[in-house]
């Protein structure tokens, strides 16, 4: 058992954040007298916070590389507005509008990436300008609201997977199947990477910690899908977020592009001296952020059933906060998609729990601010202790 505690001790931050999420969920479950984890609330939690999770994926990459993006909220309003106009004014089919929206996202990202990567203006300035530019353009384009969007489009954020396999004992079989597949996939991939490590006599986490971790994740996935299967089923947007998380975990961990992001954030000079094309990587990071902002715009517009000029207000701060709560280093070089996702969930659970308890929104804001500060302070103190030892 000492091996396990020692291992946990070395990974306080990694497990601490999971613990914090569980603690917050349990706390609000008690305070809301069981309302928090009601199936409808869990589905709503996912649907309401999908945008933070999507933006946080891109933001992790931006922050790891040592930049920041303040414009994503305005980009959501701008691209959402354009997508709304395409469907409403131009009468484009919703799928075409969605695809065009992604292209526009890439173009907007390329615009910002050009100034950051090739002209060398700090991202803080470029995206502060972008924040103003795209908010202004959104208001010019949309006015206030464009409503009456196609049902198919609105289903992206509000719909559920069709119940094609029927119910067993009051549970949606599609949702349960997805849950089981996800757990199996997780167990399989974890076991495979562990055995690869073992094969080369590399350090692996102790067996007990490995199994404990696996059981915890399985329980989390299992209970999430179990709860959802008792109600309307699997939200479409959860599938979308799940796929994005998998894809970007792969991009950051396994691709040359992902490696170069960590290299640039960890030591820019060393990256240059190792032959990393830092300009192209920085450009790519912002193009990618633009595409993810477009996805968030589509999700947000779909959720509201309308394109709203004021949409996406302070989304950039939610995404940035999610990253930092999730352990992304303020100075760059360190950060994970999974961490940012937990950060987003912590913020989401706080939002939902405080709303159910009908806490005043002004207080909700203040409380979230304190949580952010505490999380980063915890991080710094931890790091200082580790380096001081």
């Amino acid at each position, binding site marked *: 058992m000492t091996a396990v505690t020692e291992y946990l001790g070395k990974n306080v931050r990694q497990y601490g954040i999971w613990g914090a999420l569980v603690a917050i969920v349990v706390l609000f479950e008690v305070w809301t007298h069981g309302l928090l984890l009601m199936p409808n609330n869990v589905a709503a939690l996912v649907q309401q916070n999908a945008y933070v999770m999507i933006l946080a994926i891109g933001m992790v990459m931006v922050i790891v590389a040592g930049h920041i993006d303040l414009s994503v909220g305005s980009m959501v309003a701008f691209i959402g507005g354009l997508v709304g106009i395409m469907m409403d004014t131009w009468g484009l089919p919703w799928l075409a509008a969605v695809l065009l929206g992604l292209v526009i996202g890439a173009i907007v990202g390329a615009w910002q990436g050009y100034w950051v990567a090739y002209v060398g203006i700090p991202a803080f300035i470029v995206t502060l300008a972008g924040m103003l530019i795209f908010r202004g353009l959104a208001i010019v384009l949309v006015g206030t609201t464009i409503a009456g969007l196609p049902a198919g489009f609105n289903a992206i954020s509000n719909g559920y997977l069709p119940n094609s396999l029927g119910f067993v004992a009051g549970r949606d079989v599609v949702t349960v199947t997805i849950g089981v597949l996800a757990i199996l996939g997780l167990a399989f991939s974890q076991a495979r990477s562990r055995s690869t490590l073992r094969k080369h006599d590399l350090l692996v986490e102790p067996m007990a910690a490995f199994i404990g971790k696996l059981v915890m994740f399985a329980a989390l996935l299992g209970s999430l899908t179990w709860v959802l299967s008792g109600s309307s089923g699997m939200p479409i947007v959860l599938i979308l977020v799940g796929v994005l998380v998998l894809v970007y975990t792969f991009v950051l961990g396994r691709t040359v592009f992902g490696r170069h992001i960590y*290299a640039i954030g960890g030591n820019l000079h060393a990256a240059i001296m190792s032959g990393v094309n830092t300009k192209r990587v920085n450009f790519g990071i912002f193009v990618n952020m633009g595409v993810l902002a477009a996805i968030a715009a589509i999700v947000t517009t779909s959720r509201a059933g309308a394109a709203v000029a004021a949409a996406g207000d302070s989304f950039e701060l939610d995404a940035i906060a999610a990253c930092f709560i999730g352990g992304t280093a303020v100075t760059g070089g360190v950060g994970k998609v999974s961490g940012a996702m937990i950060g987003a969930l912590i913020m989401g659970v706080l939002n939902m729990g405080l709303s159910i308890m009908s806490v005043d929104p002004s207080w909700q804001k203040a409380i979230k601010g304190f949580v952010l500060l505490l999380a980063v302070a915890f991080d710094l103190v931890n790091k200082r202790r580790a380096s001081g030892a």
Partner: protein
Amino acid sequence: MSTDNIILEMHGITKTFPGVKALQDVTLSVTRGQVHAICGENGAGKSTLVRVLSGVYPHGTYEGDILFEDEPCEFKNIRDSEHRGIVIIHQELALSPFLSIAENIFLGNERASHGVIDWNATNSEAARLLARVGLAESPDTKIKDIGVGKQQLVEIAKALSKRVKLLILDEPTAALNDEDSAHLLDLMRSLKGQGITSILITHKLNEIAAIADRTTVIRDGKTIETLDMRGAEKITEERLIRGMVGRPLDNRFPERQPNIGAEVLRIEDWTVYHPINQGRKVVDGASLSVRKGEVIGLAGLMGAGRTELAMSVFGRTYGANASGQVFKDGEEIQTRSVREAIRHGIAYATEDRKRYGLNLIEDIKRNITSAALGKLSSRGVVDREEEVLVAERYRRELDIKTPSVEALVGKLSGGNQQKVVLSKWIFAAPDVLILDEPTRGIDVGAKFEIYTIVNALADAGKAVILISSELPELLGMCDRIYTLNQGRVTGQLAREEATQESLMLLMTKEKEGTSR
């Protein structure tokens, strides 16, 4: 030559850093009104000595006594020493570029009453000080608008404003051109006339001959001798060099039977200008070549331009307006970016591994593969299993001492960090390896291991360019040694004919005539 009027005496100064004795029982005595030169090789302990004197290293962190004007000194910081009239001007000037000359002169020492600056007093006093140092600039001029030479004069004016009695100049002419250097030496003479004592740290022997009254030679943290430059015996440059070199040759070097093949890399007429002060040549028409299986050395004192030469060839990572030709296997190549240089088989392992060489918050394996990730990936996806195998191979071959290749590089000792840097470049499979101070800051045992690795690389047919400030290291490792001074290649010696004295003579050889 009376020695009774001593302004400063330092006795038995010993300063230890973790693992290194930087100063050992150093004694220095400076006569009032004289220019006292301190000379020695890179790393001899010159800068450490004046940092002890000026309180940068506070009293209590060193052993020994300092007597200034017959009173014992226990400086806790620079303010204390400046209060007594000891002012040090560092090599790296400490001026604020966007403030005016006058503001810089009185920075931290403002002419003010009740916190409100008296601009009349500030500017008129500044003008008076500028006249004293012979600088014809308005006190309103911003520092960024004047050259390094004039900035140096502002530093001296600043020192004068503090009623300096003992002025310490650390390599003051290293960044100056000939004209500015000559002016600075004139100024030091005129300050001497005004009764100000100076300590001049320099390795330019002609300056010592021109201006110093007495010279103390330091080697390996010890006082070797103090010479009277105005005495009966004429002190030649050869005489000074004899004191400076002669570091013990007790480092062991592994044997290597050189097997030298065809020329791999040739650099011709390479010239590079300073990135900010673009009028100044940092590398001046340098030419050199290295052959397959050969280890060549670049010897030079601080500011000789060795690192600048290497970095500008390696993807223009230093300097401005680089010109000249680079030939690889007889054909001219371009090395405008690091990627281009790597593609042509050139690797450069930096002297500053923490700043330019490693990502300290990343693990060992990812650092090792960072310069050649393409070799491990297909369609942009990294083969992590292969990556681990590669890292493990280098851990074994270079004996990197770590529990796991997944440990963070920042946790390793200097020697092991250096092995990670070497692994990274060996994995990139270059034909030419430029190793810049590969054994700086690492212990003797690790040094020997690095030497063994270098020899193995040469045996494997690589061409190695070794930049080092330790002459015994160059003598022990290289087949041929080039010497540089002030950006120019001043000589080339084969292993058999090179000695510490012959190298130092070439390293301090001035250019003939004044070409600039």
